[in-house]
């Protein structure tokens, strides 16, 4: 059970693992020692309880890391507000503005081409919008999905990087309380 729990700890954000990982393993070890002499059913129940707790805890920590609040925390939060320590990376804002500007420019350019072609080349005739078939629509949706996924991944990556950076900044001031590196 302990080794499985060790692996489950990797589901937590690195900052949480660094700060509490060793402690959590020590508690899990004591828990395991405590249930060693009980019946198999009780051991199984205790193990399942710990596993569910770790999975839920990891999810909560990720939500907390991303949004700055604990939606399903043990402690109900009545102060649903952005925490001061949570900052959206500046690079993400610039990236999103840049993408939006590029999309708007592409639309405007396409409109200009559509309007200019019939005048410049009358033999070509007016440009008609593309008639999508089912397969093209599916392919287009797939491509859009990939693009959205890639952008989402980039945003998450930027968030994670900024989190790691903030942790690095915090480390010297927490020198006494952090208790060394994680060895799990």
């Amino acid at each position, binding site marked *: 059970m302990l080794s499985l729990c060790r692996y489950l700890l990797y589901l937590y954000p690195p900052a949480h693992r660094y700060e509490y990982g060793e402690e959590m393993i020590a508690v899990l070890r*004591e828990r395991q020692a405590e249930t060693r002499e009980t019946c198999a059913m009780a051991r199984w129940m205790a193990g399942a309880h710990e596993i569910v707790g770790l999975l839920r805890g990891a999810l909560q920590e990720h939500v907390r890391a991303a949004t700055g609040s604990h939606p399903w925390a043990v402690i*109900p939060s009545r102060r649903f507000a952005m925490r001061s320590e949570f900052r959206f990376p500046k690079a993400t804002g610039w990236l999103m503005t840049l993408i939006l500007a590029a999309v708007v420019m592409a639309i405007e350019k396409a409109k200009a081409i559509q309007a200019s072609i019939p005048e410049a080349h009358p033999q070509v005739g007016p440009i008609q919008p593309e008639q999508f078939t089912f397969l093209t629509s599916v392919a287009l949706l797939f491509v859009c999905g990939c693009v959205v996924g890639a952008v989402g991944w980039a945003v998450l990556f930027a968030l994670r990087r900024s989190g790691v950076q903030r942790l690095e900044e915090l480390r010297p001031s927490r020198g006494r*309380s952090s208790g060394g590196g994680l060895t799990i």
Partner: protein
Amino acid sequence: MGSLPLSEPVLLILLSLVERPRHGYSILKNVEEMSDGRVTLSTGTLYGALRRLLDDRWIERFKEDESSRGRQAYRLTSRGRQILRLEVGRLKQLTRVASLRMVPKEM
């Protein structure tokens, strides 16, 4: 205070730290003991709650001894004690009202 009422696990965690500082496992055992085994916190749940209490500065974390391998322990801050006093006062008042209402009226 906007933080009240506290959930039962949080109230029990804070109560477990009233008498003396404790480390993680000791908090778990004390919570179980105080609730007669009704509230059994998992390690993941406990550390989620401890982290939040640390963020809110209701508790603080320190090393039990000065060695680098010393276990981390937790103790109540003055803010935590104040919150706990308010919550216990609220519960007392609630219990008083409930006990008055629940007593069968004599005809």
